[in-house]
């Protein structure tokens, strides 16, 4: 009993609240649908056939389990803790996003929905959604901020190849939050036949819980793989945070291991002192947006301010509500890494390990490098390599002043 009440793993409550955060702050039109989604999700969780289909697709379509990899040369070059990577960048479509999309499209089909919509920032979630839509033969509309459309061209073309309609969103600064607004507008108008596949552990209940659960395959596998490979669990887990889904996927299965520390890495953009960052936890304050109460980048009047990150996937002024709660409880530590530092780590991994990471996990890699140096050689860091960098080579070239 004591065990249970002290658990960090039994959130949210029945109203979808993680402490003060989360909830269901949506227009009345969406409320009945969200309640139905929750009922259907509970039924699916209890249905062995659903789990079997999910697991089967993850194994044979996504390519799970993803490898657990000891980064030997990186470890040597840092001269401290052993660095291990969970290689979710080797998944089909090149990021962790597909884990969640498989789960949600199976739910959509179960609910009899015939049309899929999604928002995307970096385009990884858009590509993953377009992929599962092609796989299951459902029409797909992806909302993407116009700024992101410009900086993530390879992914825009991928989505189109996969048969999705990509709608550029010009409101606001044309990034992820604006795409999410447009996704919600579409959904309100098409509740009868449309399923909204949200790409991160945010939005109204039950999305944060559901996305976390689908992504938790990362941490469950990593746990078993660690025990299998070195007979012990890691000392520190590190992951990049946009909305927080890859981080929760890694962290959640370890939350009740008190000796394991966890570090979430936000995007500090051009620095936390100014306004050009996307660090909602470190540089924001609690408020209500996109269906949940969480930390937001906002002004004194509650107007949402536009973040900035070189990484389109981290460029969001909010964060999943479970992270807000994990921050306040102190269970997870949060830090932030600048554009420049992420670029450094990006190149470091390319050269030491022969792995081109996405700019999102490059933020985590920078933090890993900092921490590893300060930890003893027999300690173990496990970081989530949640995406590969093919999509980012143009952005990186531009930042490095290379013309392609």
């Amino acid at each position: 009993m004591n065990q249970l009440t002290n658990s960090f793993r039994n959130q949210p409550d029945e109203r979808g609240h993680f402490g003060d955060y989360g909830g269901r702050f949506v227009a009345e039109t969406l409320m009945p649908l969200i309640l139905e989604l929750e009922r259907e999700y509970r039924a699916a969780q209890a249905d062995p056939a659903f789990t079997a289909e999910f697991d089967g697709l993850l194994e044979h379509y996504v390519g799970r389990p993803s490898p657990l990899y000891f980064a030997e040369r990186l470890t040597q070059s840092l001269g401290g803790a052993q660095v291990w990577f969970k290689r979710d960048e080797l998944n089909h479509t090149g990021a962790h996003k597909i884990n969640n999309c498989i789960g949600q499209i199976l739910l959509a089909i179960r609910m009899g929905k015939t049309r899929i919509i999604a928002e995307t920032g970096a385009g990884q979630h858009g590509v993953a959604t377009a992929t599962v839509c092609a796989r299951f033969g459902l029409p797909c509309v992806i909302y993407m901020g116009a700024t992101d459309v410009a900086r993530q061209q390879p992914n825009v073309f991928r989505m189109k190849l996969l048969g999705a309609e990509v709608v550029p969103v010009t409101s606001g600064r044309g990034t992820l939050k604006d795409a999410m607004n447009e996704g919600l507008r579409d959904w309100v108008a098409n509740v009868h036949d449309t399923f909204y596949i949200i790409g991160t552990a945010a939005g109204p209940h039950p999305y944060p819980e559901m996305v976390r659960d689908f992504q938790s395959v990362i941490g469950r596998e990593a746990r078993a793989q660690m025990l299998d490979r070195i007979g012990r669990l890691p000392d520190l887990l590190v992951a990049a945070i946009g909305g927080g889904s890859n981080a929760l996927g890694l962290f959640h299965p370890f939350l009740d291991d008190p000796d394991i520390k966890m570090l979430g890495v936000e995007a500090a953009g051009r620095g936390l002192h100014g306004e050009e960052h996307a660090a909602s936890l470190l540089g924001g304050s609690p408020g209500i947006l996109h269906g949940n109460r969480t930390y937001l980048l906002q002004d004194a009047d509650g107007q949402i301010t536009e973040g900035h990150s070189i990484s389109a996937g981290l460029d969001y002024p909010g964060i999943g509500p479970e992270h807000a709660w994990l921050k306040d409880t102190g269970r997870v530590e949060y830090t932030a890494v600048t554009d420049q530092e992420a670029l450094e780590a990006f190149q470091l991994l390319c050269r030491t390990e022969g792995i081109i990471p996405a700019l999102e996990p490059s933020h985590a890699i920078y933090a890993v490098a900092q921490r590893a140096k300060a930890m003893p050689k027999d300690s173990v860091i496990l970081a989530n390599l949640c995406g590969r960098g093919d999509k980012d080579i143009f952005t990186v070239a531009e930042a490095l002043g290379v013309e392609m």
Partner: protein
Amino acid sequence: MTRLSSAFAKPHPALVTFITAGDGDTAANLDALVEGGADVIELGMPFTDPMADGKAIQEANIRSLGAGTTTAEVLRIAAAFRARHPQVPLVLMGYANPMVRRGAEWFAAECAKAGVDGVICVDIPPEEDDALGPALRAHGIAPIRLATPTTDRARLPQVLAGSQGFLYYVSVAGITGSQQATKQSIADAVKRLKDTTNLPVAVGFGVRTAQQAAGIAQVADGVVVGSALVELVGQHGDSAPEHLRRLTQGLAQAVHSAQRVPA
């Protein structure tokens, strides 16, 4: 009787008009709505992320925020309106975050001071009522809830619990500025709502013309017009008041002279 209940106790259905605060000369625009015959005023609080709004109101939000509108300014506009029009009910409509930013208690107290009669918060459903509802009710501000075509019979009592002022029936599943629903579906929905509540029922979303408004006024207690007015503000800037007055007059005439069709 409150200002809101008086407005719905008139011998004719009520015309409810919406414009966004801080978009153009709001005081002059509001006066034009009252002179045109509006019975209830909804004043939109601008928000950076109006995710339940269509193009017209989105653009009004951008114009207003672009002009530097703050929450303090919205409250000043409301208080000045109350001073000029002691009897006309005024409702603030907007999104949760600007309303709760300084705490629900602060917001409710400021609304009461400014003479606001009710608040419509688009993204606080009854499930999250404690984020704002108790503070509003404690200060005598009516929390006005929305019912929609997706609000089923089982859910309706929950929507009505704690609702005050009037019930706003959103006639289409969609964003503001959408196509209008059919008259029959509106009539059926209003009957269903009125079977369960004594609150007046006002119907909005997609109402643009006097003819549409007249049709709805035959079956509902009030008709809400927003996007069509907001578009006039966007098109005409400083000369918007005369255009608002003209459209409101036409709408008011249609709504006020509608013959009730017993459901």
